[in-house]
């Protein structure tokens, strides 16, 4: 226990020493990571906001089945059974002709008088169905519509907000795109960090050689470098989050109002907390991999050094 504490104490001291001695290279690579992660973070910011808007729009994806005016109760209950039996249907709501008329009049109250004066009900009864969220929801709705079209008692069908379903496909594309960009970026960052660590290693080569000759373990030699990589990742990620937060604040201040028509009242959110944490963790992991990659090469070269 004491030995472990001693080990940590020495290793942390060595890491701090490295960072100080190697300040310039360290800051440059932190800055590089900050910029790279900020770009990725901006994408993520847009993506996370689209996603949360999606979930509000999502409620509007529905299939509306208008019924014949002379539909029988029997036909109605058959249709309802059909809807409720469909595995993708999440919710079915029935609106009778009277309710439709009431709603209609209500939303136009104070409006044109001729509507209030109408003495017959022109509106059909309808079923509204919401479907479970899935990437090929639109296809499923279409398929189902084909079936329904031929059912007795059905007058016509309508998809609400077809584009939302299309947009969902687009979101999937964005997700794949982000994953690819993120993956490539991480790869690049690993190389950058491994290079940083390499420089740090070279700048202390004499010391390391001596440590080896005196009998320091490989782990003792390696750990400060690994921590250095982790630190680069950590500070880079934190700095990029700070930068993103500042940008987010600025965007909100400047553009929230003009974007309202797009966002339909949804406030532009910052990255969810879990995403921010993930960014930091991933960045630290990237730092670790980068430094491991370079330090591995040196220590593999055996004891000749």
């Amino acid at each position, binding site marked *: 226990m*004491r*030995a472990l504490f*001693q*080990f940590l*104490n*020495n290793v942390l001291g060595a890491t701090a020493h490295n960072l100080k001695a190697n300040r310039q290279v360290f800051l440059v690579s932190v800055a590089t990571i900050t910029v790279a992660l900020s770009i990725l973070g901006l994408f993520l910011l847009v993506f996370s906001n689209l996603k949360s808007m999606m979930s509000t729009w999502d409620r509007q994806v529905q299939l509306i089945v208008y019924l014949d005016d002379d539909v029988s109760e029997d036909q109605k209950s058959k249709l309802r059974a059909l809807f409720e039996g469909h595995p993708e249907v999440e919710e079915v709501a029935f609106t009778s002709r009277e309710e439709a008329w009431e709603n209609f009049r209500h939303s136009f109250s104070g409006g044109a008088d001729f509507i209030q004066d109408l003495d017959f009900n022109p509106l059909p009864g309808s079923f509204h169905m919401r479907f479970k969220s899935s990437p090929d929801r639109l296809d499923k709705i279409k398929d189902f519509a084909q079936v329904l079209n031929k059912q007795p008692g059905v007058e016509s069908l309508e998809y609400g907000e077809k584009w939302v379903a299309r947009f969902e496909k687009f979101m999937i594309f964005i997700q794949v795109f982000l994953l690819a960009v993120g993956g490539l970026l991480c790869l690049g960052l690993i190389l950058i960090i491994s290079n940083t660590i390499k420089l740090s290693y070279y700048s202390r080569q*004499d*010391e390391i*050689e*001596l*440590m*080896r*000759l*005196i*009998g*320091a*373990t*490989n782990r*003792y030699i390696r750990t400060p470098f690994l921590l250095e990589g982790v630190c680069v990742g950590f500070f880079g990620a934190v700095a990029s989050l700070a930068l993103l937060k500042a940008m987010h604040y600025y965007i909100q201040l400047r553009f929230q109002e003009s974007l309202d028509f797009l966002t339909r009242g949804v406030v532009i959110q910052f990255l969810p907390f879990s995403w921010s944490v993930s960014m930091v963790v991933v960045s630290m992991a990237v730092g670790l991999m980068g430094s491991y990659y370079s330090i591995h090469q040196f220590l593999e070269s*055996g*004891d*000749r050094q």
Partner: protein
Amino acid sequence: MIQLFNVFKSYGGVSPALDGVTLTIHKGDFVYLTGPSGAGKTTLLKILFRRERLDRGQVLVHGFNVGKLDDSRLYQLRRKIGVVFQDYKLLPRKTVFQNVAFAQEVIGVDRKTVKAHTWQALKEVGLTQKRNAYPPELSGGEQQRVAIARALVNRPSILLADEPTGNLDPAMAAEILALFEQANRNGVTVVLATHNQELLRAGRYPVITLNRGRVVES
């Protein structure tokens, strides 16, 4: 303590640096290693703490089979051996005190002990007043003494020194030798590679002479 049997080492040149060296050095011995330039003295020392790998033969040091020693256990061998390098290998940006302390820190000695032992080691070589100086500010003899303090501070069982009196005047050389003798009296096995005829002629210790990688007399 140290046993070599038919050790062969080549750097790829025309003739090997060590060519069938067989010798034994017992625990607590003090021996000189000598021979003309290029005879293989440094190479021999390097093989003992496996700074260099041997090509053929057997090397036993403090119970370690050096030729077959796994990399992951190399540090255990090296902790048994203190080395005074020909070029000292002091870290120029650390003070004298930090240089000696460093040797203990890197093998995980706790802070208090480091302080006490460093102080003790510097006292033994008579450098306590210079503890805050940096190596480039020291004379050759002083640097040599720092290197000795560092080599001894972890209480090794074997002390290897390569040309420790190389560029020192006779008085200083005698002082340095006294330090090695002191260590030897404390039970450390000492192997000292040198050209210094004065030391050799004093005749107090056995001499191993190498020539072109072979042991000439023992």
